[in-house]
């Protein structure tokens, strides 16, 4: 199996009638969603609305209870374990707390996928890993640090460098700015935008941060009540009259972000 020619396709990921239950608890159902090549799609919703679960389903980390998922032109249901692993190499995930391997320094962390999947020499792998670190704004000296020596912002950057190590077709970011101070969060937003433009990647992110939505997202999907409530650009959603959308975006914090944007 080889990867499809991604240049010839525009829809990177498409979910149809996706349903997820944990025991009796319904997370979402009848969920249809397409992710277009080159866009930055943000998933928002209240706590417990299943944002992260949806992200994990799309990143092939969790299997939906029902429905179909097509990613990079592959029907996920039809894939066996080995094929799934191969598709995963084209997906990068930034976990909320970084999930860096604590036993290795940052440079080695970024090198893990390269060592595993490319067969390049150690010297070249270290160079490419340092390049990724430079792209996310970390120095060679930072690369020698261990994850528990990093600040929150640096940890996110290091984790992002690992997520983009193989230049993934799709990048999933789980709460990229959570736990960062406003300045670092803003800088991280700029970094995501810069990388998306430079690498021409497709990004799906889950966030609570309204500033991120205004600054970064091309399209926003609002989840709630077990379904997809609304989608559109941030400006469109801000103008929407639908009560659920208004409740979510027109709170005092939402308005403040709108004014500053």
């Amino acid at each position, binding site marked *: 199996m080889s990867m499809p020619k991604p240049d010839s396709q525009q829809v990177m990921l498409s979910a149809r009638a996706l349903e997820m239950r944990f025991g009796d608890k319904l997370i979402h159902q009848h969920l249809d969603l397409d992710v277009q090549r080159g866009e930055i799609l943000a998933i928002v919703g209240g706590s417990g609305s299943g944002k992260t679960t949806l992200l994990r389903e799309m990143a092939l980390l969790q299997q939906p209870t029902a429905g179909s998922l097509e990613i990079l032109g592959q029907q996920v249901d039809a894939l066996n374990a080995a094929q799934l692993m191969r598709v995963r190499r084209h997906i990068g995930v930034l976990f909320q707390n970084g999930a860096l391997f604590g*036993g290795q320094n940052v440079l080695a962390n970024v090198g893990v996928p390269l060592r595993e999947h490319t067969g390049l020499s150690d010297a070249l792998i*270290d160079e490419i890993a340092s390049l990724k670190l430079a*792209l996310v704004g970390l120095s060679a000296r930072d*690369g020698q640090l261990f994850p528990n020596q990093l600040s929150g912002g640096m940890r996110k950057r290091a984790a992002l460098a690992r997520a983009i190590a193989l230049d993934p077709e799709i990048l999933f970011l789980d709460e990229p700015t959570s736990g960062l101070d406003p300045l670092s969060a803003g800088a991280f937003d700029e970094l995501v935008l810069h990388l998306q433009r430079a690498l021409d990647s497709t990004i799906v992110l889950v966030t609570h941060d309204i500033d991120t939505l205004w600054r970064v997202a091309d399209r926003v999907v609002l989840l709630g009540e077990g379904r997809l409530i609304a989608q559109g650009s941030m400006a469109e959603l801000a103008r929407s009259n639908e009560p659920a959308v208004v409740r979510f975006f027109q709170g005092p914090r939402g308005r403040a972000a709108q004014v500053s944007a």
Partner: protein
Amino acid sequence: MAASSQQSSERAAAQLQGECLRCSGHWTVRHLQPIEKQLSQLQWPGGPLRIDLSAVQRLDTGGAWVLHRLTESLQSSGRAVTLQGLSEKARGLLQLVRETGLQPGPLPQPRPPGMIEELGRGSVDSLQAGVGMVSFIGEMGAAWLGQVMHPRRIRWRALADALVEAGHRALGIVGLLSFLLGIVIAYQGGVQLQQYGASLFVADLVGLSMVRELAPMITAIIVAGRTGSAYTAQIGTMQVTEEIDALRSLGIAPMDMLVLPKLLALIVALPLLTVFADIMGVLGGMLMSSVQLEIAFSTFVERLGVAISVDSFLVGIGKAPVFAAIIASIGCYQGFQVSGSAESVGRRTTVSVVQSILAVIVVDAAFSIAFSRLGI
């Protein structure tokens, strides 16, 4: 066939024709492996060089880096290099890579420590570990005294939970292993004693060896592997997830909440488990003696009464609380030594079990010498 031809067109390649390097295929990090080798083996012409990228289907940051590194190294040896056939996207990527200002070449490696430095560091580390252990035992003792003075501060609930976990749940494995040990001793010893017509003394053999030495030891070793490791892993994981700090910030001393209940529970549970192991071991020996040497249960028990003095029994049981204190303090101390990572939890758990078992055996040997000097 289609798949293989697609594979070959995807493979990144570079061919040197005169003074033009023709690149083709997917210059992406997944397909770069052959290129790295090829480029290092090429004989570069002396004059200016053109690199033609028009046949490159895809380029990512990895490919851009290799290209950047190549042009840098050629230019530094005084050749003029021109790039041709770059797509808009490839130009952007190359620009991006160049902007990072990263220089090709080996990274600054931390200097490997010399022998003397390593020796020094090792000594200081061991010394610190020793001092840390001693001060931990001191803290533990102080906290314990505090609880003895104010019994209301004892956390009975935690103590009861720890007792169930360390004592009751260990009955099965301790019983089974000592029963089997009793069988083995009776079998091996019985064969020898039978040759001298002293079969009956198998009761002395099984009884004394189990009650004085083997039951306390095997119980302590099982408990070190089972409970000591669990203590280290639990406290270590709590350390990683900042739960220990959370306890402190809530005004709860981790020593009171986590360590003392475990210590006390083990000091109570281990002697009881040892008595249970005594009984099961003797039962195993009795069963084997009756099967192999045809010694009736009643005869065996009668002989046992003569062979085992109260002193021997107490000597065995008396060692158990000491072993318990060793296992609990090493287990908890190693848990607090965990720093940062999951790997550290694993390493500390191993250290905890190894040190506990080693300490138990060494202390047991010391007891043997002391008792024989005292003539018990």
